[in-house]
């Protein structure tokens, strides 16, 4: 958060099919979106790891959570 999310705009532009631009305000909002998503993901992963009585978040924790989160985070 304190750091700027680098090249978000380029990422989005890469992913889109058609040639589309991104406004700076929209870019900021996209950053917000990513942060929100990440925070939710981290929280879920944390919970998942905690259930396994592990203090560290491990890859499989994240993996197990990611699918659910992705489904949640689509419009």
């Amino acid at each position, binding site marked *: 958060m304190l750091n700027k999310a680098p090249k978000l705009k380029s990422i989005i532009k890469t992913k889109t099919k058609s040639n589309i631009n991104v406004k700076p305000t929209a870019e900021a909002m996209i950053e917000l979106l990513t942060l929100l998503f990440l*925070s939710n993901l981290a929280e879920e992963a944390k919970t998942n790891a905690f259930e396994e009585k592990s203090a560290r978040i491990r890859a499989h924790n994240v993996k197990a959570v990611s699918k659910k989160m992705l489904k949640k985070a689509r419009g």
Partner: protein
Amino acid sequence: MDPTEDLSARLLLKNILSTEPLRTPITRSASKAQSPSGKRRSSRLSKKDAGAQTPQEIMRRSMKHKLRESITRKSLPATTSRMTTSGLLRKTTPGLTSMLFDDDDTPRHLLRRILQTEPVRSPVVHNKAESEEPGSSSANSSISSKCSSIELSGLDLPDLTLGNPGTVAKGLSRKRPRRSLNVTAFEKRLKHASDFQEEHEESAENYSSLSLSSSTSLSLKTPFVDVRSEKRGLQRRASNRRKITEEEFGAAVNKQWMGGDHVKGVELNHSTYSDGFTLGLSELCEPNITTDIINCNTALYTQSDPMASTLSIMATQDKDTVMATQLQRQMSEQEQSKLGKDETEFVFPTEVGVMEELQNEQCVPEGQLKEEVGTAGSQSDEEEAESQSVKGDGEDTGADDSQSEKEGADDSQSEEDKIRSQSEEEEAEPQSEKEGADDSQSGEDKVRSQSEEEEEAETQSEKGDEEEGPDDFKSGEDVEAGSQSEEAETQSEKGDEEEGQDDFKSGEDVEAGSQSEEEEAEPQSEKEGADDSQSGEDEVRSQSEEEKEEAETISEKGDGEEGPDDSQSGGDVEAGSQSEELGDDGEDYQHDQEDPDTNSQSEDKDMAESRDEDEDEEGKQASEQLEHISRRAHHSQGGLVVPFVTERGRSRVHSAGGVHISLEAGGSDGSPPRSGTPDVQESLTSGTEAVDCVADGENSFHLEMTHDIEEGSHLSDAPPEEEAAASAAVDPVEQEEEWEDEETEEFPCKTPAFVKEKRNFFFREHETSPSVLKNIQTSRTGEAVPAAKPKKVQKKTRGPTKKQACLPKSYLMSVFRHFAKTKVSPDVYPVLQETMDQFFDRMAEDLETYAHHAKRKTIDYEDVLLLLKRIGYVNDKVPVEVLIEKYLRMDQRRLLIPIATSGNVVVPRQRR
């Protein structure tokens, strides 16, 4: 009030007072209801009343007025009488007597008169009665009520009163009932329902003023007579109306009879009128509908249907609309390949003839839209063909169509032809397939191919054709599938040929012959002496090849199985005409059954080989095959392959064939043989190698089916490489590896690199289409360069093609750690990256959609906001600003949330 007897001054005065105000309304109403004279009088009276100051004067005026009115009323029909009668109800019958007292000046007398005159004033009552009457829906009730009033009215003619209630009551309804107090009379009237005029009259009369009704009331005694007389009188007045109403009425009556008779006049009247309108509408609609149907404009048709629902036209129209809809469907289908399938299927059963039309239509659009149309058309055709074949009749029609198609195809657009040919071939194929008893398999193969990959479908169809398994049904399907997946052209051609052969064998020569020379040749050659068919096929093949109907030749070969190739080659160069056939088959169908292995393989290979070797027929065939393959590949790849292949020409045919093979094989074992075939063709002069290649090729195809892996393996001696190459191209990751091994091992074929490239190409396919295309092209070009090892190629292709757009690790991990607040192991990074990748994919897609929906080319703040809302991050409880403030840095926040600064300046500048 009864107070006529109560002559106390008080009462009388009260009455006066109470009645006075009534006068004016009464007078008005009375005047309106009655002759204009009444009106005038009422006006006068009203004026007088207004001006009247002394009660005496008022009374006098009223009395005089009443006298006059009474006189007039007597003469007139009864509304007034009714009124009077109603008024009389209140009072006894001294109304008349009251008139006599005009001369009395004593207040008492005056009052009496006033009171007495009240009934005369009955206009009020009348009005009430009248209002009530019209209000009353049921005539009977009104009649009864009126009767009572009538009776009571002593003033007037009881007749009138009698008549009035009836008439008034029915006001809106027929006058008959009104007039005839008796229910029987009413009923009689009803019986006379047929006499529309009466109804009209009545209705007209109803609409006419109450005076009319009053006149009718007079006639109560002789209701019918009077009524009619009155009607006549009324008729004159209402004649205009009647004319209109009669017409409508007539129409309405008709409708009524149709829609069910309405006994009662009111109902009839209403219904008739309504019906009349509808009738008119329906009439108007009919022609529109028909024209619409003719013009295939079902829009109107559907609209008009409800209109004409009552009419039989609907039934007729339905058929038309069905046709129209079908036709339209087909049109649309063609555009939408997949959609077309379903629709055509539906349409198909409806009419065979339609199919042809459809086909024609399809053909036309097909030409226009190569891929989709072709597929759709071919699919539809194929489907039709298949279904027909199954039935046995359809094939003929399909064959006819196919024949015409083929011919036309040759001449006309290649695409269309191909598509048609596909269908035809498909039909033929199933027929021809019988030989190889691979029909089922081929069909299956075809089907599988579709499912697996478009490319595969082609190969399968090809193989299927070649194998000529009796998979009439399936082969057709496969062919369809293949065609669908790829530009129907190539597939259809091949498939059609094959199918056609099969079909013929099945016994539908008509189709075979019709479909194309090729097809016919194919089936013939297949079973009997491949030579005949071969020759025919060869011819056809040549045609197809030249005309781009490679599929046909291929299919032919497949159909002809063994013979055709030889004949085509003209020298049995293929030695294994069988091999050629096999090659063909292999390409078309992947029937591993019976012939498949040998025939198909050989055919396929032979096809490829023959082309190289003989360069005449074989080349054609092979080229066709290859072209088909390439086309198929192209389809899968985006159509670039086709031009690529075509450019190459014959020489490349082999490679293309191999590619096709590989592509088609989609990773089946057969692919390697295929890949080998093109190379083999070149190198092989005899059919031996070709056989191998073909076999391999076939195997590859079959493998697509995923059941001939074994075969392919053993057959893939020579061709394995080819197949591998082809398969590589075709198959995505899975089989590529396998094939690669096989290829490199077995084969002396030259196209390892090319094959590998293809494989890589497909491998990359899923990654990015452009990358795939690159691969294909590179692979193609790389043919000359022998085999760089597939792995290397893959890697090379991977690098440039892959787009790595992801967040940097440091940022991602730091943010994640921040949010997790617990220890995070670094091995979460890859998972995290993948997740974010998918997340960005979805987000970009959504944002793009939103922006596009807003007809903008730039993703805006609003788009993202909408996305936030949709996901649920922002809702009523959590406004977006809160999130902004929570998560974003100041510089971003400054962008988004306006800040008021000194000098009335808001940052950022608000446009709104």
